[in-house]
């Protein structure tokens, strides 16, 4: 589970003025407010479980409990003009999409939205709002965003960081990986021509997943050798959002990450993308 927290005290250049209090980055309406979003990627590559949690903003928590507001997550791929909003009454929301609609990894915008208009005389103590709102009568119209999370781009999976490139200098079956950190963080995977072709067109072939596991292991190896000691320096791995998210994902799977002494690249790779033999895990033990 990857968590992203939106806090009123964090700075954001896009602060807007509204006629109602909103919990969003840089907005002081809820001084102690936190909107925490947990993301759990589905194994099918086209779903996510999103868990919404609102803290320190009683007005919002109450509106949800009273059925006045609901959880919404917008999935978007602007490149292919795709934008769909998913609504849920539950804190935990499963979101699915069709990869054929996506021109790029989807972007998610979580929020809490008013679906039954209501009015409140706001109180600092009762509702957790800033004193600026104290005593004011506010109407919350249909569609009002009570909480707005930061946009999350689905690039935290290591597979989204792989950039496959054909390398004519490599002989059949060879590959090598290198880290590339000029525009975000990615792994450039140099592949011999046959491997390049195979990985592009044979996703359903079981050998495909074994090769990917091997490549992911090699990528983790690069992180261990080149990015394990510089985490606090500028340009270190913590400067890359994708790597921070990946470290958190490994932690969630109870695995150390590349800055930890006991990090084993091959174990991390095969934990995330296990080798399955003959399509059934038991086949490896001769029990199929």
């Amino acid at each position: 589970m990857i968590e992203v927290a939106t806090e009123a005290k964090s700075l954001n250049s896009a602060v807007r003025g509204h006629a109602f209090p909103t919990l969003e980055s840089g907005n002081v309406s809820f001084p102690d407010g936190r909107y925490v979003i947990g993301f759990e990627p589905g194994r099918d590559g086209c779903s996510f479980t999103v868990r919404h949690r609102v803290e320190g903003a009683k007005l919002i928590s109450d509106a949800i409990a009273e059925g006045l507001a609901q959880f919404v997550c917008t999935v978007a791929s602007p490149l292919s003009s795709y934008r769909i909003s998913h609504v849920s009454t539950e804190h935990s929301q499963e979101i699915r999409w069709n990869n054929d609609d996506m021109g790029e990894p989807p972007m998610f915008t979580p929020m809490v939205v008013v679906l039954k208009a209501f009015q409140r005389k706001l109180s600092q103590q009762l509702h957790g709002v800033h004193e600026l709102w104290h005593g004011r009568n506010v109407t919350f119209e249909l569609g009002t965003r009570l909480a707005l999370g930061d946009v999350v781009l689905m690039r935290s999976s290591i597979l989204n960081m792989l950039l496959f490139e054909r390398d004519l200098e490599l002989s059949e079956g060879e590959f090598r990986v290198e880290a590339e950190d000029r525009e975000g963080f990615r792994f450039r995977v140099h592949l011999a021509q046959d491997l390049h072709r195979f990985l592009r067109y044979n996703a359903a072939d079981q050998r495909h997943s074994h090769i990917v596991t091997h490549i992911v292991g090699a990528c983790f190896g690069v992180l261990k050798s080149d990015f394990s000691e510089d985490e606090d320096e500028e340009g270190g791995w913590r400067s890359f959002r994708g790597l921070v998210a990946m470290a958190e994902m490994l932690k969630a799977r109870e695995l150390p990450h590349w800055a930890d002494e006991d990090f084993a690249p091959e174990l991390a790779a095969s934990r995330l993308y296990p080798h399955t033999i003959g399509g059934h895990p038991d086949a490896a033990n001769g029990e199929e």
Partner: protein
Amino acid sequence: MSITVYAEWDEAGYTRLRRSLIRKSAKGADVQREFLEAVRDTPDFLLYMEEHLDLREGTELEPLAERMSEAEFGNPPSDTERRLFDAWQELTPRIACRVAFWGRVTFRHIEQGRIESTFLAGNGGGTVTGAQRIDTALSATGEESPKSMDACVRTVLRRMGGLPEVRGNRSVYVNCPLARAWWRERLVAEVTAGEDDELQRHIRTVVHPESQQYWEELVTFVVSRNSVFGSVEVRNILVRTLARALDRSPTSSLRRATGLKQVCRAVSIVQASRELSVLPYDHVAQLMETIVQLHSAET
């Protein structure tokens, strides 16, 4: 379910080629001259592209059956766009937003004799053909020479599959005639959702406008990363409302790109504080009607 992998140019190679042709040092230089000389002659163009680009193999999209005139290619009439979309209905947005894919599709139309490579250099309406533009650019002298060669190269790249390096993500939707036709008709299909022909006709007045600028404005609001249209449904309701308004008053100011821009901005302002995508259809439709009426004026 099997997924069709379509043939397209190798994306990295195609991007490198575009960048090498539009970089500052290429302006009026041999690299642009060589490219334009190739575009001037269809067999040379085919050879040039095959020498410079690798193919990502897959199913080739079948080109249209009929040969197109230069004018028809540059600005396909509505019925040609419909025919094109019908023929390529199996395409998905994931593929149809790819510059490398449309670059290959355009190439195949040239290879199969449906269009000439010089058509790519045509610049919208007017009486000057693409071939004439290339000739003018190649024979220009003095200060004008690099400028006109550069402009011509950029036109060719834009029409071939889009030029996102200069025009952003919307380029594929607005600059490549084949892609533009597909996206326009897809929008018609999405907005009408199989409803009657009359509604489709009204919608086409919005998505197939007389002015290219109008379509570009619409696409900017639909495709932009910062687009405030919360969802496909909101966009569809707005297009329906616009179409009805234009049907009621054909001389409305909403027929102009500036009118559309005002409406889109007004929707953006509402969407900035309220999430329209989760509201009931009638509620959003009423809101759109109010906004459209507010910004509609007889001209």
